[in-house]
């Protein structure tokens, strides 16, 4: 306690500015609308981890973290309004949990010198920090996801999937279209046939798509879905008796909400991931003690340990670590968004650090640099066990196909840089 008081005193002296200094983390959440099932656990996890830091450690570097929640409803206009409403409060980093809103914020936030962390979503080519100075998408992006899924299939099929037919069921939006280019490249490389099946927002009606899958009998189905679309797809797959073990979703299509409605029929469904599942980590004991039992849990407090809760928690952990890094680099506790950006760019997540934070083996190790804003692109696979009602990691975090993804990222980011006359960011 004495130690903590000293650090707080030091931090207060270092801040030497406003008395009520705090670190503002805006949470552009969506607890309403067709995507709320995904938005609620993520927002809860994000808020609970920050509450934990405040309650247990007295904040980050001595300053309390403040969550500024703003409801977007997954709607871009509301997202823009939320951004404008919160940016004046010293918001350190935006995590909108929506590819559409991320696209909106990329130019705006860059102009305002505020970093955006689109963790596992958003614009994939933002990995190229040389062009996208303020956008980060570590630890993995959609193209890593596409490649990770194909790698997993290769591994499971003796490194040969030539002549196989793979269907991609995707949300017909920027989000769902992201993996197509990579999959096309991979199809050429590995000789499989790609079948694209679009599902329109919000995805409650998918009869014709699954009829098509039933008719053409693809060997594997990949899915880029979100919100209600996931549950419907899994239910429809069960209805046509599609073998669940050949059905792989992206990490946004792999939460409890997606598989529970289909009951036992969803058993064996697989999903990609870039972080651990379940609540078997020491940090959850602390969350129980400091947050849930203290009655400070966000939302209804019933999401702890679900896949998307863990993802929100992971996002908050990465944000907090980046803030610490920024405080270390600049020697002040009350950091600005610009300093936060520097912290994110120098972020290094090691196994030792994760263990120290109570999250051993929770995610892949990675480092961020000026050129690489996307981490080390390691992707794992989880599988749903309907009888146990839990996800389990069946393939460890493995590297993805940089030969295909690298040039695509280069090409897409170069096009963006040309369109908008962006100078190289890394000297």
């Amino acid at each position: 306690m004495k130690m903590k008081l000293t650090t707080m005193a030091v931090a207060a002296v270092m801040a030497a500015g406003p008395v009520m200094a705090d670190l503002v983390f805006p949470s552009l959440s969506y607890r309403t609308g067709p995507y709320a099932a995904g938005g609620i656990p993520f927002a809860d996890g994000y808020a609970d981890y920050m509450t934990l830091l405040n309650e247990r450690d007295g904040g980050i570097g001595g300053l309390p973290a403040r969550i500024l929640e703003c409801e977007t409803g997954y709607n871009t206009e509301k997202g823009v309004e939320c951004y404008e409403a919160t940016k004046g409060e010293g918001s350190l980093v935006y995590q909108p949990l929506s590819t559409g809103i991320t696209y909106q914020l990329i130019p705006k936030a860059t102009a305002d010198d505020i970093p955006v962390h689109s963790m596992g979503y958003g614009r994939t080519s933002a990995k190229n920090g040389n062009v996208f100075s303020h956008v980060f998408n570590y630890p993995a992006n959609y193209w890593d996801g596409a490649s990770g899924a194909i790698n997993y299939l290769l591994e499971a099929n003796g490194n040969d999937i030539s002549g196989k037919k793979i269907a991609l069921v995707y949300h017909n939006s920027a989000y769902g279209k992201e993996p197509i280019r990579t999959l096309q490249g991979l199809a050429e490389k590995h000789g499989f046939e790609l079948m694209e099946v679009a599902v329109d927002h919000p995805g409650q009606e998918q009869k014709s798509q699954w009829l098509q899958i039933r008719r053409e009998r693809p060997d594997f189905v990949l899915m880029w879905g979100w919100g209600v679309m996931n549950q419907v797809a899994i239910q429809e797959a069960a209805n046509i008796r599609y073998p669940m073990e050949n059905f792989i979703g992206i990490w946004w299509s792999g939460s409890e909400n997606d598989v529970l409605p289909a009951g036992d029929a969803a058993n064996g469904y697989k999903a990609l991931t870039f972080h651990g599942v379940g609540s078997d980590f020491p940090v959850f004991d602390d969350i129980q003690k400091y947050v849930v039992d203290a009655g400070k849990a966000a939302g209804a407090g019933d999401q702890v340990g679900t896949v998307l809760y863990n993802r929100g928690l992971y996002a908050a952990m990465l944000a907090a670590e980046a803030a610490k890094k920024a405080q270390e680099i600049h020697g002040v506790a009350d950091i600005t968004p610009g300093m936060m950006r520097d912290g994110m760019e120098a972020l290094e997540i090691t196994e030792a650090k994760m263990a120290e934070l109570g999250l051993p083996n929770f995610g892949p190790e990675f480092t961020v640099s000026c050129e690489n804003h996307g981490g080390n692109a390691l992707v794992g696979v989880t599988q749903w066990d309907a009888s146990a009602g839990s996800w389990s990691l069946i393939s460890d975090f493995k590297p993805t196909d940089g030969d295909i993804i690298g040039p695509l990222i280069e090409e897409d980011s170069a096009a963006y840089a040309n369109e908008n006359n962006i100078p190289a960011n890394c000297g």
Partner: protein
Amino acid sequence: MFYREAGDFSTTYPQDSQTFPIRFDRYRYYVVLAIAVFVMPFVMTDYLVNSIFLPFLIYAIAAIGLNILTGYCGQVSLGTGGFMAVGAYACYKLMTAFPDVNIFFHVILAGGVTAAVGTAFGLPSLRIKGFYLAVATLAAQFFLVWLFNKVSWFYNYSASGQINAPERTVFGIPVTGANTDAWATYLFCLVFTVGAAILARNLTRGAMGRQWMAIRDMDIAAEIIGVNPLKAKLTAFAVSSFFVGVSGALFFAVYLGAVEVGEVFGITKSFLVLFMIIIGGLGSIFGSFAGAAFLVVLPVVLKIVGVDMLGWPTDIVAHFQLVIVGALIIIFLRYEPHGIAQLWRVAKEKLRLWPFPH
């Protein structure tokens, strides 16, 4: 007392037929316009412009457009979102194909393209009426959104299917892209909104507007007194789509900057604009402004009161907003079908007689 025509004499016909025949009203209009042009740009912040003023100005244009079709000509349309998408994509294609032409002309041309598309979809209105026409325009809505999602030529073959507005300037000042100033985008949209309102006001009280209203009130009677239904209906579709297209172009280029058609110009947008003219007042230019202002400002006010002042959870406030808008639509349809515009008219009548109502 404040608002009366006593002592305000018209000596010429133009004076008699001006938009605001009462002196007080006319001065109020000039004052509002002067404040909007000379005062507001100086107090404009990023927050104000992006959460209130840009959406208000742009939705007002869309509401004027839909009001011409639905309020003045009586043709129900649920295709507003799709026509806004036409404006947005036309503007995007023009912006990227002719980067040297001023964005001002691109927006006007985008309106022109939308007018052509709108006229084409208006052709069925000659044969079908009422609910059936609503369904036909609904088909336009879904078809157009599908088209812009499916054909990659429209989004220049970008991987994500998103369209992004590049930076364009007017008199050397950027009005689209990331590095815009709040006042510049505000003034740019204000010019279009004021222009649209003046144009619409003068069209609706001229021969064309009278033809539209005749068709609305009883199309057979209108035909008998010599109104050409083909011409009247198609001009209503064309003019309406022009305004909606301009608003779509501004919505994409100035307000959002990046657009994904299914999400931004979906069916909900059509309903939102329809609610604006229902709440604001069918067949009234002022009603278009009132409805747009109401539906843009209401969520912001609810959020400020609910979340920032009362500290309620954000989801409760978001749900409340749906409940309140829904209740208001029912209340307006039941008790005041002519909307806020009618309330305003009644208030003016009362003011005129005040303080001696008999």
